[in-house]
């Protein structure tokens, strides 16, 4: 018996009549999507003059959205609502089929409602995006290895910066809540599936349709604006910008759907006895993160719709020549942008808080402080956006208040440190791969947090704003802290998600390469920033040559480390040691189910009688 065909022998293949849903998959989605896209493109073509930027933008945007819509129709996303509309709701058999029951590996390519399948889809998707974004980062660093921009032209360099940024931001937003929030989280709270399984499938496949759209930017002249896509530069940019706009709008839909779904699941579907103060901390973190994303992303979507209108129908939201304002864009963007960094950070931290007690064999120190930390960060994060605009000229008299709210975030962030340090203290940590992540996080977040203090200060920001120092700072928090947390989560939950242990030796090699390379890379970048190198420049003066060379060496180390990790994941997934049910001796519910996890997760719904951190012996 093969591992993934577990159910094939236990249940008959439903739907002998071969109804439509059995025939639809990613392939049909792509066919219909491409037909929609081509039809749109060529139907519009006679009516536009492609040399007129606005008309060409209309044609491209319509084509991109129709691809997405066509794909969703082709994969069968709308069959359920349609059948419900005409009064012939899906039968139990059909719903079981949609859950991928008994379909082996094929279900990963279908509109599958099983949260575990969606989790794996997200995992593969995220790893692909990280791979692409990382490759782009290598290109950026190669160009900056010495002054002169000898590797790529300025126009390709600007595109690299933009695409690296947005690819990584999208990947990082879903890196923990996508794979683990979907696969692990429902099992962790003792649920049979997500609250809205079809929406779950929708959120993944909608996101999937954004990937080719984003890639098309390369062939349309690139994204010259960086990931922030500041207007009016984005209004002025070439056709590649349309890909950015369409990607963000599609992505915002996906996040809204996923966010509502995860929040509803946690609120409504926790096991009997799992009161709020017994919810595992990762679940809390994931929920805070997606709940924060629900108000944040719509403003990004709105800003992109406005940019799109400026580019297609000559509205002047951001054009100061006609009464618009670039500050309007900056506000909309950062009202999303600053909560967004915590949307990225919190699930990574929460995963580490889940990991630490297991490997230290001590309860999580002050669960309540962790909750207060998350709540404080989430609450303050919506009040700090204008610290990105200290130098913009918009209302300098509000710089003081925004500086105060920004620096206040250091207090709830301090609680996060307290929780992790308190858990480590007086313990003897079992230094497995996930646990190493906790240590890397503590160091990287310390550097990221302290450097954030200088940036939050208005006078110091006079010097540091827009310099390489900023780039180094947010890489410490987003990559050094959040990505480290997510990768530790991968090492931790890999046995449950794949049934196999992640190759340890390769994991250690990768860890040290990545972490040491990371310190070298961003140490160099902090220095370049302090020396006065602006960010996002393809070329720089000779003064910065040494620090940039150092940075590039660090980047190559990270590159090697990440390739080793990728190999370890692929190899272990196929050939790794078979994992026991609970390899780390954890107490949370996901470790009480076997691999492969049954379709409805639990044979009998679990009943929770205590929280999950009952490690440790009573004190003397």
């Amino acid at each position: 018996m093969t591992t993934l065909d577990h159910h094939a022998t236990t249940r008959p293949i439903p739907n002998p009549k071969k109804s439509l849903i059995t025939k639809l998959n990613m392939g049909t989605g792509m066919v219909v999507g491409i037909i929609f896209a081509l039809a749109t493109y060529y139907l519009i073509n006679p009516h536009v003059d492609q040399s007129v930027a606005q008309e060409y933008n209309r044609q491209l945007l319509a084509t991109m959205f129709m691809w997405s819509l066509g794909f969703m129709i082709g994969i069968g996303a709308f069959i359920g609502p349609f059948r419900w509309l005409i009064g012939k709701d899906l039968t139990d058999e059909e719903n079981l089929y949609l859950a991928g029951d008994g379909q082996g590996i094929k279900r990963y390519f279908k509109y599958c409602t099983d949260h575990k399948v969606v989790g794996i889809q997200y995992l593969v998707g995220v790893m692909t995006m990280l791979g692409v974004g990382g490759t782009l980062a290598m290109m950026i660093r190669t160009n900056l290895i010495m002054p002169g921009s000898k590797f790529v032209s300025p126009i390709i360099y600007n595109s690299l910066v933009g695409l690296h940024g947005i690819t990584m931001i999208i990947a990082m937003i879903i890196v923990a809540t996508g794979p683990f929030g979907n696969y692990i989280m429902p099992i962790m709270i003792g649920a049979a599936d997500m609250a809205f399984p079809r929406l779950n499938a929708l959120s993944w496949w909608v996101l999937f349709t954004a990937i080719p759209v984003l890639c098309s930017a390369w062939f349309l002249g690139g994204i010259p604006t960086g990931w922030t896509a500041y207007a009016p530069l984005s209004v002025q940019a070439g056709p590649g910008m349309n890909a950015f706009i369409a990607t963000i709008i599609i992505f915002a839909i996906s996040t809204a759907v996923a966010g509502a779904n995860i929040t509803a699941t946690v609120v409504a579907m926790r096991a009997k006895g799992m009161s709020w103060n017994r919810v595992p901390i990762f679940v809390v973190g994931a929920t805070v993160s997606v709940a924060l994303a629900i108000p944040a992303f719509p403003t990004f979507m709105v800003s992109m719709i406005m940019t799109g209108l400026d580019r297609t129908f000559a509205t002047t939201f951001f054009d100061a020549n006609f009464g618009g304002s670039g500050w309007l864009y900056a506000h909309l963007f950062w009202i999303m942008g600053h909560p967004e960094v915590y949307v990225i950070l919190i699930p990574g931290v929460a995963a580490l808080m889940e990991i630490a007690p297991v490997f230290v064999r001590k309860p999580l120190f002050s669960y309540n402080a962790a909750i207060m930390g998350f709540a404080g960060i989430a609450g303050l994060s919506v009040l700090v956006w204008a610290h990105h605009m200290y130098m913009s000229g918009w209302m300098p008299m509000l710089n003081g208040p925004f500086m105060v709210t920004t620096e206040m975030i250091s207090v709830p962030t301090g609680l996060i440190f307290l929780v992790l340090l308190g858990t480590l203290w007086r313990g003897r940590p079992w230094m497995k791969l996930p646990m190493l992540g906790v240590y890397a996080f503590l160091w990287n977040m310390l550097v990221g947090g302290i450097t954030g203090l200088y940036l939050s200060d208005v006078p110091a920001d006079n010097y540091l704003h827009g310099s390489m120092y900023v780039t180094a700072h947010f890489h410490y928090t987003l990559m050094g802290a959040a990505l480290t947390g997510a990768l530790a989560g991968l090492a931790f939950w890999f046995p449950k998600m794949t049934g196999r242990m992640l190759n340890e030796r390769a994991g250690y090699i990768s860890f040290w390469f990545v972490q040491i390379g990371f310190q070298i890379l961003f140490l160099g970048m902090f220095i370049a920033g302090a020396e006065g190198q602006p960010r996002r420049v393809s070329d720089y003066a000779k003064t910065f040559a040494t620090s940039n060379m150092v940075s590039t060496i660090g980047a190559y180390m990270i590159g090697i480390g990440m390739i080793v990790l990728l190999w370890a994941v692929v190899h272990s997934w196929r050939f790794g040691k078979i994992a026991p049910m609970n390899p780390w001796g954890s107490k949370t519910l996901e470790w009480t189910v076997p691999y492969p996890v049954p379709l409805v997760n639990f044979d009998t719904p679990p009943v929770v009688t205590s929280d999950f951190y009952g490690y440790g012996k009573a004190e003397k």
Partner: protein
Amino acid sequence: MAPTPGEKLTNFFKRRDVIIASALGVAITALTVIIGGWWYTKWMPTALSTDMKSIERLMVIFTWISAPVCGTVVAITLYTFFNRHKGDTPPEDGPAIRTRGPIVILWSVVSSMLCLVAVVYGLIELNSAEGKAQADAPHAMIVEVTGNQWVWNFHYPAQDVTTDKLMLPINQPVEFRIISADVNHSFWPVQLGVKADANRYQVTLADTTPNKLGTIDVKCAELCGLYHAYMETTGAVTTRADFNNWVTAQGGHTA
């Protein structure tokens, strides 16, 4: 018999782990304070104005404020890392410490205090900079800065000079009026410690008083398209006489 709170505290500081971790913490804090004293100023370019000087001082003081945090975190991390459990089986359970009320309170209060120091210090600096700007405004020399894709230029209305180089006389308060001819730029005369965005149809003000002779690098700190990296020029802080000569050479008048 239960120990008194005083005895508890004494016993606490007699524990081996507490002694080692505290020693580590003090050592790392001290190290951070020492390194923080020169680290940033070593890399930052020569300050040509008091604004840049105060930024340098601020970088040092903020490093010192963060030093105890750095010391605590690194000490506990290092201590537990060296105390780690090796092997393929999980270690024995540690003490079941769920929380420690006093520690949580202490931590919150101390971190709030450090935060407060940073906030207050920042606000004072901000306030004094604004006060200085207002005091200087009546006798400031005006320089109109225009950001174009991908060139800066400077107009001195009183002298009636327009150039591509930023020339400033020493000890003369200067008010920059910054505007863009197209997309957003960010005007950054590096050695002056000034930065302000250039927006279309919105004048942004920035001010400083150069107080040292030297060269200024003017950069653009906001991605502005194709040649963003090359949107740089130079300038200098010169003596009043040299400045006047330069103005005359440019065909302006030195009223």
